[in-house]
């Protein structure tokens, strides 16, 4: 076995600008898609429990389609598929300071739509976990639907939503690698480009693995702090340990409950 240690350390500790750009793009893709996915998920969850006409059925169809097809297929379908069928082409958008390339837009759209389906189920389960007595009390005080959701239900549902949301973002950081197939120069594609120039696959993939491991670990710490804050008022409740969050048993439980 040959492992070029100096090469490994160099790329790990003194990454090139190209590499850092890739890292940046991974972070932007993940954060933006998670935020958009959570917003989509919130409205989908509210739509699903609304009982208004066909809305719950449409939402269920969306969730079914998104969760039942591979994310990789969705990414290619949205970017390449729609363009090939002359339905939609993603053009670069000039935002003044930065230009957002078409494939980045398509990548964010695919990741967000996919994430929205999972978040919809998580948020729905979270809302369902709040004691119905809270709704009744809020109604009896004359609160309308908006106030009731915003001030009473969602803040309490957040305690149930945050642990699986943390796991979702952990997955998002890793799933964002899939948009490399439509040529988005995020961390993985940058690594791939480097390997084709240097042929140091083992070393470079060790480096990229460590980068993702660092991102997910840092996120785990952030997540722990956010959850501790939301658990403030529930003095009797035990804050789940780092291991529980990291390995995602709570996600499994939440999905089962959904």
């Amino acid at each position, binding site marked *: 076995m040959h492992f070029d240690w100096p090469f490994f350390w160099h790329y790990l500790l003194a990454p090139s600008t190209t590499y850092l750009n890739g890292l940046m793009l991974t972070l932007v893709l993940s954060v933006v898609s998670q935020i958009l996915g959570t917003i989509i998920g919130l409205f989908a969850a509210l739509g699903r429990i609304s009982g208004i006409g066909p809305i719950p059925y449409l939402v269920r169809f969306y969730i079914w389609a998104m969760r039942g097809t591979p994310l990789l297929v969705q990414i290619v379908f949205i970017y390449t598929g729609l363009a090939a069928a002359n339905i939609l082409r993603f053009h670069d958008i000039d935002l003044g300071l930065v230009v957002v390339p078409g494939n980045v837009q398509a990548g964010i759209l695919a990741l967000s739509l996919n994430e929205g389906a999972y978040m919809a189920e998580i948020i729905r389960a979270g809302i369902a976990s709040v*004691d119905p*007595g*809270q709704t*009744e*009390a*809020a*109604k*009896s*005080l*004359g*609160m*309308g*639907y908006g*106030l009731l959701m915003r*001030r*009473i239900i969602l*803040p*309490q549902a957040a305690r149930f939503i945050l642990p699986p949301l943390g796991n979702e973002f952990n997955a998002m950081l890793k799933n964002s690698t899939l948009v490399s197939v439509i040529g988005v120069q995020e961390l993985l594609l940058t690594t791939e480009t480097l390997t084709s120039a240097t042929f140091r696959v083992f070393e470079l993939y060790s480096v990229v693995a460590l980068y993702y491991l660092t991102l997910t670990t840092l996120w785990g710490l952030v997540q722990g702090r956010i959850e501790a804050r939301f658990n403030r*008022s*529930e*003095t*009797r409740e035990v804050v789940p340990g780092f291991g529980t969050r990291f390995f995602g048993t709570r996600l499994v439980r939440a999905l089962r409950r959904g």
Partner: protein
Amino acid sequence: MTQMRGDILESIGGLPQPDTDEVVRAENVHKWFGPLHVLNDVSMTVRRGETVVVIGPSGSGKTTFVRCLNHLERIQEGRILVNGHLIGYRERRGKLVEDRGRNIARQRREIGMVFQRFNLFHHMTALGNICEAPVRVLGMPETQAKDAARSLLARVGLADKAEAFPGQLSGGQQQRVAIARALAMRPRLMLFDEPTSALDPEMIGEVLEVMRELAHEGMTMVVVSHEMGFAREVADRVVMMDHGQIIEEGPPAQLFGQPQHERTRLFLSKIL
């Protein structure tokens, strides 16, 4: 015992006056849960300043009935007027149709409700619980709402618990916060749905004491309760329900002293 000061309603600028003498008027109310006829032709009026205690065995429909009074439950027949207005429904071409959510919410502002399981907002302090609706629903300035809330808390004996979360309070304390929360909206009518049934025996007294004080200050109240001592002492009228019907009603002395109906006698013999 609780350190309570009198004049609870002084905190909210005195007794809120209903617009009509008949604060509640229920006419031939019917309700079904599937095949179950939970309310069968219930008619009842509650006059300004009256305290009516509704008693009856479990499953008699008494809880369902008070929940209909602020439209937490739909009714299928009959009509209910609170403070002179049809609640939950409006008349369209001689038929009753369910009102818009916004209108129902508006009507509920004037009706306070206290629940068996307190239902305090767990993510808010006692003070936050009380201020929430006056600030968000009525648009009261926050400082004014907080002053009123602190005053209310003091008068139900919880001056030192303003910053406590519900999870840090005993059942009796939570229920007193819940009463203060309902009062902060200056309700014309207070509904109590078995307010002491979830409490440990030693905490029942402190909650009943607050309710007794409210009744004395002239609040119009409908109370579903198993506390016969409270009913005897505080109620202007006691209503006995069974199988979704009002069996009999009257002043407590009469209803407890010479019950007219066999079922009332039987129920009272079991509970007293």
